[in-house]
C-alpha cells in the first residue's frame, strides 16, 4: 500500500492530488505504527502528517499554483544519487538484528531499566511519556525549541508584518 501510494505520488503532475496522496501515505504509515504497537507515534503521524501538514501544503498551494512545471533537465545525476543511497540503506539493513530479537542492542541498553524502574522512579503508566518527558527531557526541550525556530523562520520568510510600521524592529 505504501509503495503504491509512493509510486502514485511520483507519477502525478497535479500537486493538489500529490498533497492528498501524501496525507493518505501518512495515514497508512500511522496504521503501520499501530500494528508495531507504537501508538504514540501513530497518533502523532495521523495528527501531524495526515492532518496539519496536508492543510499547510494546501495553503501553500493557494499561494503558488496547482501544477508542477515540466522540466527538461537531465535526470541521470539525481537518479544515480537516489540509487546509491537506496543501495547503501538496503546494504546496511543486512547488519541489523532480526525483527523482534530480544538480544538486539536497543533492548539491552537502557530499555530494560525504563521498563522495570520507571514505575517506581516516575510513577506513571505510560513509559513513552516518562522517557520523553523525564528521562529525555533535555531532548524534548530541544525539540520544542526547533518547533519555535520553525515559526520564526516562517514568519521571517512570509513577512507577516510587512506594511505595519509599529512592529518593525
Amino acid at each position, binding site marked *: 500500500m505504501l509503495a503504491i501510494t509512493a509510486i502514485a505520488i511520483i507519477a502525478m503532475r497535479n500537486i493538489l492530488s500529490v498533497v492528498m496522496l501524501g496525507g493518505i501515505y501518512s495515514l497508512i504509515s500511522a496504521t503501520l505504527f499501530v500494528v508495531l504497537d507504537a501508538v504514540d507515534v501513530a497518533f502523532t503521524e495521523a495528527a501531524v502528517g495526515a492532518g496539519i501538514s496536508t492543510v499547510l501544503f494546501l495553503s501553500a498551494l493557494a499561494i503558488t499554483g496547482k501544477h508542477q512545471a515540466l522540466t527538461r533537465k537531465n535526470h541521470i545525476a539525481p537518479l544515480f544519487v537516489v540509487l546509491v543511497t537506496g543501495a547503501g540503506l538496503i546494504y546496511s539493513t543486512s547488519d541489523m538484528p532480526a525483527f523482534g530479537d530480544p538480544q538486539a542492542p536497543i533492548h539491552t541498553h537502557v530499555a530494560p531499566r525504563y521498563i522495570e524502574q520507571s514505575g517506581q*522512579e516516575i510513577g506513571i*503508566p505510560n513509559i513513552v511519556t516518562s522517557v520523553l518527558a523525564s528521562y529525555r527531557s533535555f531532548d524534548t526541550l530541544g525539540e520544542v525549541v526547533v*518547533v519555535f525556530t520553525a515559526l520564526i523562520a516562517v514568519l521571517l520568510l512570509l513577512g507577516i508584518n510587512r506594511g505595519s510600521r509599529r512592529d518593525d524592529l
Partner: protein
Amino acid sequence: MSIRRNPVLRESSHLLIPAILLFALYVQFHGDYGPGGGFQAGVIFASAIILYALLHGTRRAEKIIPLKLARTFAALGILIYSFTGILGIILGGNFLNYNVLAHDPIHGQHWGILLIELGVGITVGSVIISIFYAFAKFKK
C-alpha cells in the same frame, strides 16, 4: 472559497469543533496514562482552530486567537518548560530534575511532567496556528 458557503460543512463543524477542543485537553492531561501528550494535544487544538478558520475565514478566527497572542504563547510554552527546569536548580537539584519539585520524588515527577507537557502543548499549538495564519494571510 466555495466551502465556506456549504451549510453541511458549516453546521457539522459546529458539532465537531467543541469535541476536538475537548479531545485536545484530554490528550494533554491524560498523556501520563494513555497515548498522547503535549505535542499531539497542541496539534489537535490547532487543527480545531484551523478548521474554524477554513470555514469562517481567517479574520473571524483571529478574533478568537489573534496572531499576536499565538506568537506570545509560542514563546510562553518554552518559558514554562525552561522555568520548570530552572526551578529544579533553585530547589537544589539539576536542570530538569523533577524529584525536588514536591515533597516526595514521585509527586515531583508528576508535577514536572505535567508542567513541561503543558509547555510543549502551548508552544506546538500556537506555533501551528501562527504558521497557518502566516500562510493564509500571505499576499503576493
